[in-house]
């Protein structure tokens, strides 16, 4: 479930920017340019974000970390919820 919260939130944010932003551009000679810029910014930023997010969604490899660093992680970030492995 927690997967969906960032996915929806960030997507909604960029959707809001990309679709809503152009509506608030004041009239003027540069209106078209500014609208194009806002839409493209939203598209590019969202594309890049979602690529990175999806890549981490189902990791196929785990990080290989020196024992001392694991100790540090154990102290600072805590242990996993499941049963711990002995080695």
């Amino acid at each position, binding site marked *: 479930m927690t997967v969906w919260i960032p996915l929806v939130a960030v997507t909604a944010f960029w959707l809001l920017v990309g679709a809503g932003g152009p509506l608030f551009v004041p009239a003027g000679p540069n209106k078209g340019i500014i609208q194009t810029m806002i839409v493209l910014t939203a598209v590019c*930023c969202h594309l890049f974000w979602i690529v990175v997010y999806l890549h981490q*969604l*189902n990791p196929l490899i785990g*990080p*290989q970390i020196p024992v001392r660093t694991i100790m540090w992680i154990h102290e600072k970030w805590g242990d996993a919820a499941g049963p711990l492995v002995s080695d």
Partner: protein
Amino acid sequence: MDAIHRSEEISLAQIYLQNEAAYNCVAEMGELGLVQFRDLNADVSPFQRKYVAEIRRCDEMERKLRYLEREIKRDDIPILDTGESPEAPQPREMSDLEATFEKLEHELREVNQNEEMLKKNFVELTELKHILRKTQTFFEEGDAESQVFSELDMTDHAEPTSQLMAAFRYVFTTDSKNSTETERQALDSLNAEESPSHDNARLIQDRGDGTNAKAHLKFVAGIIQRDHLVGFDRLLWHACRGNVFLRQAEITESLSDASGNTVNKVVFIIFFQGDQLKSRVKKICEAYHATLYPCPDTPQERREMSIGVMTRIEDLKTVLGQTQDHRHRVLVAAAKNVRLWMAKVRKIKSIYYTLNMCNVDLTQKCLVAEVWFPKLEEDRIRISLKRGSDESGSTVAPIFHVMQNVKEKHPTYNRTNKFTRSFQNIVDAYGIASYREINPAPYTIITFPFLFAIMFGDFGHGTIMMLFGLFLILREKQLEAARIRDDIFQTFFGGRYVIFLMGCFSIYTGIIYNDAFSKSFNLFGSAWSNSINEKTLHDLISSGGEKILTLEPNVSYDGSPYPIGVDPIWNLADTNKLNFLNSMKMKASVLIGISQMTFGLGLSYYNHKFFQSRLDIIYVFIPQMLFLTSIFIYLCFQIVVKWIAYDYAGGYTKFGYYYPGAGCAPALLIGLINMFMMKDREKGFVVDNTQGSHEYLGACHTNFWYPGQSFFETIFLLIALACIPVMLFAKPYFLWKENQMRTANGHAQLKTVELILLLIALTMIPIMLFVKPLLLRRAHKRRNLARPASREELLSILTDEDSSVRADVNEDDAQVYHYEDTSDKPAGHGHGHGEEFNFGDIMVYQAIHTIEFALGCISHTASYLRLWALSLAHAQLSDVLWSMVFRHAFELDGYVGAIATFVLFFIFAFLTLAILVLMEGLSAFLHALRLHWVEFQSKFYAGDGYVFNPFSFEKILEDARNTEDTQ
């Protein structure tokens, strides 16, 4: 939409200008700066044009003004430059200006001439003054010595004023035997005494009559440059066989010559005997540019002369001062106006230059100009023309006639502001857009900094770059006013908005990469945690603690990824961080690259649509789109499906196949190659496709991973989206259906689907290659059949809007002029073909275009991998810089640590700026440039237009100013 994405509509118009109003009208056009005059006299040499005389006069005025400016600069008088643009003066004012400049120049030249004369006089008099002073000392020394000698010799012949006489007599008396040996001895002894006056003895070879010698001995005095003296001395000695005596004295103060340079000079006096020697000495003096001055013999005369010279010098000084004052006054007055005058003269000149481009009408009463102008500005142009003719008092208003159906290539005019200009320049540097073609600049504003940022992504470096850009933008006014003429600075300053945006996007991608100077933030709490129990950890640490352990995803990973950006855990994974990031960046590059290419291809559709070329839409755009879709968009789709569908643990059935775990996640790159090679593979991952089985079926990650049925739906959707015309998609559809009938087992279908996709891609190539040229040929044949008869042709010439009557400037005959179709628009746009139909050309063009596209799709996709390569290089470099340089500071404790931190910080900061921000930034910039020019623009951009270059005073003056500055 068209307003910002295409260049403006341009029309061609003829303007009939009354002779007397022409000047004013053109001046108004120059102030407006919106029309481009066409040169209607391109075949007339510049010297035969109508307003040659006026242009010459302007050149002459310009020359005078430049002379004036040079003189002003020489005197270091500040030139008033308000930068304002004066109204173009009326033609009648030209002679006033001319008279003013003539007067000024004349005055200045006269003053300069006088000054030069006076200075020359002054120099001469100063030299004379020095000669008199120095010779005075010679003669006085001589007096003193002669007294000594007279005592020695006990003779009373000694001339009291001449030291020479004394020396002469001395030698004469000691050398009574006329033998050379004794002479030499005497000379040596004299030399040994080192008294310059004793050198005189050498002179006297002719020692015949000592008493006569006094009477014949003469001297000349003069002045010579110090560096010439050695040669002069030697030549004098050789040429006169030692019969002259030279004395010299250096003038300690340095004199200035007539042109104002300082030179060191030496006063000399030469004694000799006889007229023959005199002429010889004089010739030598001449040859060495030594100036001789009259020097009286007696001390009284010399004294009087000296006094005379002094008074004259004083007089000269006052006159010289007055002259310089006058010159200064003239120049100061001129300095206030010289810029204004220059602007005026340049305006007049450009007006006449433009008028020279116009045609003279048959009646000689009016001029005909042809202008390109933006259609939207027609009203403003008309009003300006009206104002121009009113100013000149002409009764007849100029006629402004817009021409229809102009087939000639129109200029491309993209309106820019200071923000969009730099992006437009990036696009224009590749090629000016064809007329009314889609202008990629508005998209480039965002996509360029975005692609740059993917390669440059680092929060810290991006911040530095953004702040630098922001500084340039905020200080815009001051920096512009400073007029810094440094090339590198100008480049950065011109691209300040690009730099700013690149910085902003780099900050964003830096956050996504979770990289700030190669360090990560843990803002949201990592999705990973420790999975090793504490006891094991303690044991391992106590036994050395060098071991590296893997945190298995099934235990350590909590199921929902780090919300924004890369999880900070990967920054701690020394050994396999790159494995993870490379895979991510590679996939991101492919996805972003293919998105951009598809976007470019989409733009080509709007181009074809705009130019109403159905042929291009159906037979070029659609096959291209299909080609891209069937291979590359399919690849993107696979990437996304793999991300979502397959996880580490496995143990579930996906797409009808049992998936046992991470080892069997499909390898897409190998899959792509296999797709190309149509290689037969196993279906599914495990033997018999049974639940819970761990017996892998061959190399399970290269096997087929989903049945054809689901894939068919995907393809159907993609094909539908790409709007394949029935003709094209019917064939693959029936092929596929036939195949489905044959194979009852659904599992066998994947191979067929990929085969079909490949077939589609391959069939696209001949379609792209042949269909359009063939259709074009058919259309051409049809047109030939329906050709009008020759009589109708003649009629059509007379009624044709495309021709106009033009008169020659010098001759009285007129001709009907046809606008020949000079445009060589590529066949790709399906219009603009002339009467001559060249099947070969179109075929070659189409072949190149097709091959370029088909190969390009592959090579361009590979080319987008530079996004990955550069971002990898950037991240690695910044990582290395941190761990090799700055981190060492933290390994030390106490005072040493503090000092090391201080010192290493500066090294780290310098290297970060120089290598990571500047050099890496430059290389990322170049790669982003290439991706836009080649990979993006090649999909839709023809770029064979020419730029709209309106006649504008503002631009002319600005250009002139810039060339002046660079000189």
